[in-house]
Structures are given as structure tokens and as C-alpha cells.
């Protein structure tokens, strides 16, 4: 029985794993607070290491030493759900106008990033002599949004399960590495929260790792990373459609009859939830005297206390996500993928990280992010 069918037949089977996510995440939060309290009590200046890192570290250590007993697996796999719930609730901390402004810049950079990353990864894959559909999966995974994009593309281009597993393992391995390197580079370059968040949202592939890499830098950077990554996720349908049409034309995948339905099916629905919550948060902040035409709608919006409560609910959801990222990182599984896809992924990721860093620094220079 798979994790999914087990979960569908018995939702109670999720509870032990969710409890473990909470225990690991809360342990991370407890360590962060304990260090801060100790430093304050003893008048010491200790480095502020975010709970994100502790939660991931505890999870990685547990998963790779004692291992994850079967009873916890279904619940731990829910971290993708907590991630999406966290993103939707985070919408309360964004005013719609800011989203339009920031996502405008993000979309321009995303289009450039997508074009360069897809082209570069395709040529790199050919140079490494990898199977064509594996190249497509790695290109999609590294240019747009990690695991979700690979899974969506696998179905659309009818790629092998094995190719999909290899591409996912490569993307996850590189995501784990990015958690260490991105904050280091960000601090070395003294990047602003906004610029750093934008960079991680553009360059880190998997949404969970992009969120974690942003939050490792600062709370504000985490917020911007989520926004940029959400914009990138919103493009998933178009890229998958492009690949599906390409392979269908070659006669190696089913033809797409209804393109609009295909786009809707692949569109990540949590993006709409995020925008809706943000709309309600924006409504609540409007002054009825300044916006008389919207006066009758303003009471539907959230007030400051409600925005704070939703923001904190989002933080709890992310806490479970980060614990899940650590608990799902298996070094053994990552080593199984073979050196070639990993090497191609690594070279591609370094190039994408470099290109997006240059783009963000240029945008920061001209638009003062």
C-alpha cells in the first residue's frame, strides 16, 4: 500500500508523522529561543541561528541515523501540504499593491531566468549524453519549480518513473546544498532582505527549500522568497504545456486537445488562495474615507489583530514544513541517483544561481529593491 492510499483510507495514520513534524519543529524553535535567552542572561553576543536551521538539522540527523519508522512516513509526507497552507496564510502579510509591484519585477526576472535556464540545461544534458526525457525533466525541475514541476511534466511527456525519480533526487540533493550556500553568499555580499529573498525565490528549485533558504536569512527575506517562488510556480503550466506539445509533436506523448483545461489542471491552486487572503488583508487596511466606493466591502477584510493571527498560523505551518524537509532528506536515497544527472544538475544550478544573482543585483542597483 502506498503512502497516498494509506493516507486516503485512514487519515488517522497521518497523526504520528504530523506529531513528529511538530516535535522536531518545536525543538528547533526551543533551541533558538534558549540560545537567545542564555545570551541575554549572561550578556553574551551569540549568533542568532534561526529555528529553521535547527529544525532541518534535527530532521536530517534523525532520518539518516535512526531512520524514519513506517508509522511516521505518511504524516511526514504532509509537509508539502503544510508548505502550501503556510504560503496561502502568508498572503495576509502582503498588501495587494506590494504583490503587484514585487511580482512585476519578479515576473520579468523569471521570464529571463526561465529562458536562460531551459536553454542552458537542455544543451548541458545533451553534452552529458543523458536520455532526452531525463534532460526535459531536469531542465523543468531546475528552471521552474522542482519536484512539483517534474511530477507534472513526467505525466505530460510520458517519461519513465526511473527518470522522474533520478531528476527528483538530483533536485532535492541540490536543494539541500543550497540551504548552506545561499545564506553564506547573501551575508558575504551584504544583500538586503528583499534582494536576497528575490534571489532564493528565483534560483532555489523546490518551494520548501526556497522558503527555508529565505527564512534562514531573515523573516522578511523568507517572505520575499515565497513571493518570488510563488510567481515562478504560477508559470508551471505554460512550461509543462510547452514540453508536452514538443514531445507530442515527436509522437512520444499524447496530444493535448484542450490547452486551456491543461493549463488550469497544472496551475497551482494555492497561488489563488494566497492572492485571495492578500486581497482580504488589503481590504482591511483601506480607509473608507479615501475609498468610499469600497466602504461596504471593507468589513470583509482582516484587521491588524487578525492579520497578526494569520501570519502566526503561517509561521506554524512553515515550522512543520521545515521539520519535514529535514526528515525527508535521505543521504542514502540521494546517492542512488548516479553521478551524471547530479553533475549536470549541479553545474546547471551553479550557473542559474550565478545568472539570477547577477539579475537581482542589477535590479537592486537600478530599482533599489
Amino acid at each position, binding site marked *: 500500500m502506498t503512502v497516498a492510499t494509506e493516507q486516503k483510507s485512514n487519515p488517522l495514520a497521518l497523526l504520528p508523522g504530523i506529531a513528529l513534524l511538530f516535535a522536531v519543529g518545536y525543538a528547533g524553535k526551543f533551541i533558538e529561543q534558549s540560545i537567545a535567552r542564555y545570551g541575554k542572561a549572561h550578556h553574551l553576543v551569540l549568533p542568532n541561528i534561526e529555528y529553521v536551521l535547527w529544525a532541518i538539522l534535527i530532521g536530517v540527523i534523525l532520518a539518516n541515523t535512526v531512520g524514519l519508522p513506517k508509522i511516521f512516513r505518511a504524516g511526514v509526507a504532509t509537509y508539502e501540504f503544510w508548505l502550501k497552507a503556510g504560503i*496561502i496564510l502568508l498572503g495576509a502579510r502582503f498588501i495587494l499593491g506590494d504583490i503587484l509591484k514585487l511580482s512585476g519585477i519578479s515576473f520579468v526576472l523569471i521570464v529571463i531566468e526561465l529562458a536562460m535556464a531551459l536553454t542552458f540545461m537542455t544543451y548541458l544534458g545533451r553534452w552529458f549524453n543523458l536520455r532526452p526525457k531525463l534532460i526535459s525533466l531536469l531542465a523543468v525541475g531546475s528552471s521552474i519549480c522542482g519536484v512539483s514541476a517534474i*511530477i507534472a511534466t*513526467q*505525466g505530460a511527456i510520458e517519461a519513465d518513473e526511473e527518470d522522474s525519480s533520478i531528476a527528483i533526487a538530483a533536485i532535492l540533493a541540490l536543494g539541500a546544498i543550497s540551504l548552506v550556500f545561499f545564506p553564506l553568499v547573501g551575508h558575504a555580499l551584504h544583500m538586503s532582505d528583499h534582494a536576497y529573498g528575490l534571489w532564493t525565490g528565483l534560483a532555489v528549485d523546490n518551494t520548501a527549500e526556497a522558503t527555508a533558504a529565505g527564512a534562514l536569512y531573515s523573516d522578511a527575506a523568507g517572505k520575499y522568497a515565497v513571493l518570488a517562488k510563488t510567481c515562478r510556480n504560477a508559470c508551471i503550466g505554460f512550461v509543462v504545456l510547452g514540453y508536452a506539445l514538443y514531445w507530442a509533436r515527436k509522437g512520444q506523448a499524447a496530444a493535448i486537445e484542450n490547452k486551456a483545461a491543461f493549463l488550469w489542471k497544472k496551475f497551482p491552486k494555492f497561488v489563488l488562495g494566497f492572492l485571495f487572503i492578500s486581497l482580504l488583508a488589503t481590504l482591511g487596511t483601506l480607509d473608507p474615507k479615501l475609498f468610499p466606493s469600497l466602504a461596504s466591502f471593507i468589513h470583509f477584510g*482582516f484587521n491588524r489583530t487578525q492579520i497578526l493571527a494569520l501570519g502566526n498560523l503561517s509561521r506554524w505551518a512553515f515550522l512543520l514544513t521545515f521539520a519535514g524537509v529535514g526528515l525527508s532528506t535521505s543521504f542514502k536515497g540521494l546517492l542512488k541517483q548516479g553521478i551524471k544527472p547530479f553533475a549536470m544538475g549541479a553545474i546547471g544550478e551553479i550557473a542559474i544561481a550565478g545568472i539570477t544573482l547577477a539579475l537581482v543585483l542589477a535590479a537592486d542597483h537600478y530599482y533599489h529593491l
Partner: protein
Amino acid sequence: MAPATKKFALSADLWAVIVSLTLALLVHLGVIKTVAW
């Protein structure tokens, strides 16, 4: 790994929307008043 993730990923998306909007409604109605962090 992939088939399980695939089925779960599809449902996780919609479930996240349903659960988050329910939580937001509870906050808006005052059923959830404050959330500590």
C-alpha cells in the same frame, strides 16, 4: 516515491486551499482570536 508523491501533490494543493481558507474564516469570525508564536 514518485507515484505516491504524485497522488499526494495533487490533493495537497486543494486541501491546503480548503484548510487555509477555513482557518482564515475562523479568524475573521473571531473563533480564533489570537495565535501566539
